[in-house]
């Protein structure tokens, strides 16, 4: 990596940490936490934009994407707001960690961090001790080795040092101490109910209540319409709306969700905020056909992707088990867990989506590659879908009877054959 660092004049405002500018649209981008998804979106999620993730049915792969987004917010030092109307949010058990967070300084009395330190110490002793004093190379810049965990507003975590996208590990979890020090605000069902009770103008509309909450958050230092105090740095607000439109969301109007999304777009356009929404589109179906309101919801978002899991394509849980027993499409399911469909790409400040030019996975247009995702032990990956090998890798290529026939042929019949050994050229 080049050691050249562009000097930014002091008069120019510094860009927020862990952001980059799209050269085609001059749009500020933030990472979703999944590098492949950033590639599909054309470099990342535009600041001021909304990404809609249509959830997979009967599986939870979309929640994994949301957890990556939240972890990236904590890793980058951004402010995070999670709105979840149906259940309590326990970040410590959901968010994947990264290698740097396990080597961070811990607070006294934090059991998780102490155990992590002790585990690292014992691990170091088990590994060759002579390498203990050598710098650890883990594929990133050497400057990041001694970096402590990021904290919001920390002067050490500058825009230059903070990586754009952290390398997360699903087998690790973020220590509770790091989560406590991060700038995270959780709005769950109880908080929404309390806010609705205290506000007379809400009319029992959860959407309006949440929109007011988001507006208050944006006005608290993330609005592009208000100047920054001197010596203050710009930061990014990441908003996560989980299962928007599910049965737990109550609106005063059948089209309350449309009014909410329109108002949300207006707020985000004049803010340093990015929003990811998970939407259970399968709840808005009649006889297998989507209701028209789903298209309206997609139209109100800047980017729309859909996760279609192979398990979720079955109508009942028993059919899932039956399919596994039969082994139908077992080869495909072993490699991939579902398809990723791209319905809409962000086109902020541009007529065309920049994904077609910048993406390695998806070329766009008529020659677009089919994308599939799979959840491995340590990471969630999105790849170009390839059909499995014909016949599969677990099936016999040659039936057993044919093998016995070939073994009866006299040895040494072929050219270059060795008596007593099977001729490799024999066919």
């Amino acid at each position, binding site marked *: 990596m080049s050691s050249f660092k562009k000097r930014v004049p002091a008069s120019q405002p510094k860009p927020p940490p862990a952001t980059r500018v799209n050269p085609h649209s001059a749009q500020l981008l933030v990472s979703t936490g999944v590098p492949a998804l950033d590639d599909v979106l054309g470099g990342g999620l535009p600041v001021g934009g909304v990404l809609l993730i249509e959830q997979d049915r009967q599986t939870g792969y979309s929640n994994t994407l949301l957890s990556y987004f939240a972890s990236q917010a904590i890793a980058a030092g951004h402010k995070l707001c999670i709105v979840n109307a149906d259940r309590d949010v326990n970040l410590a058990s959901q968010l994947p960690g990264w290698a740097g967070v396990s080597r961070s300084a811990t607070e006294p009395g934090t059991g998780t961090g102490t155990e992590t330190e002790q585990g690292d110490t014992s691990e170091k002793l088990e590994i060759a001790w002579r390498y203990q004093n050598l710098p650890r190379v883990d594929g990133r810049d050497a400057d990041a080795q001694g970096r402590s965990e990021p904290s919001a507003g920390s002067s050490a975590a500058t825009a230059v040092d903070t990586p754009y996208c952290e390398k997360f590990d699903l087998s690790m979890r973020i220590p509770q101490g790091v989560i406590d020090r991060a700038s995270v605000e959780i709005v769950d069902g109880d908080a929404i109910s309390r806010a609705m009770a205290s506000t007379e103008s809400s009319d029992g509309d959860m959407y309006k209540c949440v929109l007011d909450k988001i507006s208050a958050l944006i006005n608290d230092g993330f609005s592009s319409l208000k*100047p920054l105090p001197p010596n203050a740095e710009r930061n990014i607000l990441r908003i996560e709306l989980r299962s928007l439109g599910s049965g737990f969301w109550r609106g005063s109007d059948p089209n309350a969700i449309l009014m909410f999304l329109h108002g949300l777009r207006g707020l985000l356009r004049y803010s340093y905020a990015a929003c990811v929404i998970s939407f259970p589109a399968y709840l808005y179906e009649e006889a297998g056909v989507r209701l028209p309101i789903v298209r309206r919801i997609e139209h109100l978002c800047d980017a729309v992707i859909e996760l279609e899991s192979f398990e979720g394509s079955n109508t009942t849980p028993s059919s899932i088990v039956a399919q596994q027993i039969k082994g139908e499409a077992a080869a495909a399911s072993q490699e991939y867990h579902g398809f990723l469909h791209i319905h809409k790409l962000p086109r902020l*400040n541009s007529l065309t989506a920049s994904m077609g030019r910048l993406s390695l996975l998806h070329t766009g247009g008529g020659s677009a590659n089919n994308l599939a995702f799979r959840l491995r032990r340590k990471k969630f990956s999105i790849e170009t879908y390839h059909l499995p090998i014909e016949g599969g890798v677990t099936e016999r290529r040659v039936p057993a009877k044919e093998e016995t026939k070939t073994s009866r042929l006299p040895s040494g019949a072929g050219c270059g054959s060795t008596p007593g050994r099977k001729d490799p050229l024999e066919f």
Partner: protein
Amino acid sequence: AFDNKLPVTLISFTQTYSHYVHILRKMGVNLANHQIQFVNALLPLDLSSLPAATRPHFTLGPKEQWPEFLKWLESQPPSVIIIDGLCSLLDQGHDLSTALWFFTACQRIVESHEVSGARLVANMFVDDDNTEPLAHAVIRRSHYVLSFEALASGASSDVSGQLTAVAGHLHCQLPASKTFKPTVLHYKVSDTTVLFFSPGQSRIVL
């Protein structure tokens, strides 16, 4: 409109002024040489703190403040009025009659100028349930209807979609109504322009 040296009034319910400024610059339009006024209808916010280059000339407030907006629009010189996202009025919670009233009010202002070239162009997203009644009502008050759809024959990397141009219900009032023929065109959207061509002629044009 810019080629004919006509001023443009852009009323947007979907995007900010900076979005259109970036696109127009990429298309080679020098905004200093053209008269364009932007009306922010996305969100009724105080945008006076924005730089002059991206500051809206008017912000459309709640329904009670629409008469004030229409007075301002009427006081402007004759121009091409473009409404981006008329269906967003339904998203904001207004009913069909209110959205249609807004469209008709803008249409009356254009017709009152009686200037050659002054036009009203409105675009909207049409779906099966919510916005189709509004689309039908607007078509009954239109001279031309341009429908942008996905390519009928399937996705293609050379063609972005197809445009169907048909006459609206008021087309018979136009002097050139007998020469117009409904047509289907293909189009390709690029960063700097949009190219229209006859079906099957993409290789010649692109």
